[in-house]
């Protein structure tokens, strides 16, 4: 595939995003927007997870924590000022990024499974704090009355859908820009071998912090519209483990080596889940994720992208032999 410079790539993404936004106007049923919102939310989450998990090699199990920081930042903002949602998204992203920085600083000397456990613990600590914080509803949860219509007069759910679509585009552009940059090289060296990375002059700690902040901030931004989507938010749904499991499973199933993997994984898995929720039962969701993940770990450990690359290489090899 020929290399497309990042600015053209982002232009293409922007055009596709606008095209999808307009095409969605054809949908006659609001359910399409409810389901589409969830799929797009997972595109952002999976892409964000992949910046730290895929590019840098640090498995974050605390995804739900960052997501909920975004959601609860929006709740706080709503209770204090009732600002436009975009302001809450920015604040949610900022808060989650800040927590990402703190987490990075405290835990990045841990590697592998120890890092994963520390991030999971972080999510639990945060959940406990929120559960005991009355201002945001505590364990009882909080109701958010969402406006009837968005700023352009469309139903609010359509506005949420378009916002999440735009966030997905931003996340994908960031991920893709990192991949083909000096930062991307640096993160890959951390994933491959941290000692060798330092010896080659890579400031590993600083790069890891950039990755945790970026990844955390994107997750927070994905979480900020949640209260307006569900209209009732309590800690056990905001910090739901399903967010963490899904955001890890999607990049793994799609492939962690590039921006395309999380996108494929998220669209595929989230769509299947949405269909299963309607046709079979909502309790089946995690079972589906589990089964698909087990299947991929055994059959295609490098995800769908990995399968595809293997196919391309296998087809190229006989040609190489003939040429030789």
């Amino acid at each position: 595939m020929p290399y497309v410079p990042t600015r053209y790539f982002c232009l293409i993404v922007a055009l596709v995003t606008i095209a999808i936004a307009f095409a969605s106007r054809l949908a006659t049923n609001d359910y399409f927007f409810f389901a589409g919102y969830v799929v797009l939310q997972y595109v952002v989450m999976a892409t964000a997870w992949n910046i730290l998990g895929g590019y840098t090699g640090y498995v974050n199990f605390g995804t739900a924590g960052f997501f909920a920081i975004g959601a609860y930042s929006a709740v706080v903002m709503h209770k204090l000022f009732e600002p436009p949602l975009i302001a809450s998204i920015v604040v949610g992203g900022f808060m989650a990024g800040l927590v990402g920085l703190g987490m990075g600083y405290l835990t990045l000397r841990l590697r592998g499974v120890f890092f994963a456990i520390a991030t999971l613990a972080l999510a639990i600590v945060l959940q406990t704090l929120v559960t005991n914080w009355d201002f945001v509803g505590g364990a009882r949860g909080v109701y958010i009355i969402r406006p009837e219509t968005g700023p352009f007069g469309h139903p609010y759910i359509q506005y949420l859908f378009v916002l999440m679509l735009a966030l997905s585009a931003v996340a994908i552009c960031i991920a893709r820009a990192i991949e083909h940059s000096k930062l991307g090289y640096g993160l890959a060296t951390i994933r491959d071998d941290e000692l060798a990375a330092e010896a080659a002059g890579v400031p590993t700690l600083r790069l890891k912090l950039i990755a945790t902040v970026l990844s955390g901030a994107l997750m927070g931004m994905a979480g900020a519209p949640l209260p307006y989507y569900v209209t009732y938010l309590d800690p056990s749904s905001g910090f739901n483990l399903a967010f963490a499991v899904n955001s890890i499973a999607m990049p793994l199933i799609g492939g962690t080596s590039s921006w395309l993997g999380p996108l494929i994984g998220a669209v595929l898995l989230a769509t299947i889940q949405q269909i299963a929720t309607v046709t079979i039962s909502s309790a089946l969701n995690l079972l589906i994720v589990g089964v698909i993940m087990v299947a991929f770990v055994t059959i295609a450990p490098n995800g769908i992208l990995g399968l595809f690359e293997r196919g391309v290489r296998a087809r190229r090899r006989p040609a190489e032999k003939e040429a030789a």
Partner: protein
Amino acid sequence: MSALLQVEKLGKRFGGFVALEGIDLEVTAGERVGLIGPNGSGKSTLVNCITGALRNESGTVHFDGKRLDRLPAHSRTRLGLARSFQLPKPFHSMTVAENLHVPALYTVNARHGQHLSPAQIDARVDEVLTQVGLHEKANRRPRDLTQIEMRKLELARAMTAEPKLLIADEAMAGLSHSEVDDILALLLRLNAQGVTVIMIEHIMRAVTSFSQRLVVLVAGRKIADGAPEEVVRNPEVVKAYIGE
């Protein structure tokens, strides 16, 4: 001439185990120094303390007039101190050429007043790959390399950082006779270009023919330091290697 590398009273312990104690070492610019010692004598620990992979508890390390002790490893690399690892540590998700892009981007371009354009980096990477004889494999992944090619990649990555001092940690272990000569010739060429080299090695033939000076570590202490022919006759060294 003042020393390029100056290690003074360096000490390192792991829990109750004293790995290094009171190590003094001076290396002048342009010198070829061999560092030898039995297994577990602290050679690699010393290298790790000098390059920043480990922190020494006591003593100081000065390089090119700057104190290194508190600097992280990548800052030391940027000052001109490069190393290769005893067990090759390639970036396995990247091609051979991309492996060399890393020090070019992060070390050479991080130095004050230097900035290589992407085309200059490509040229520089090409040049180093040709020098070590890995040019043909530029677009291969490290897993496709043989043992000696892996060692060469390890050295090439250190060379791309344009170091003043290169520490080669057992770059020849497990190689055949002719392969050892290959690496030796490479290191001698580097030294002729003005790079100071510290070689850690078990293969005596290689280390004695290469080094102008030999330093011997035994059980975390330096027991000899001098011309190779004298050092190998030193009774303490003989005792450490062969026994009484």
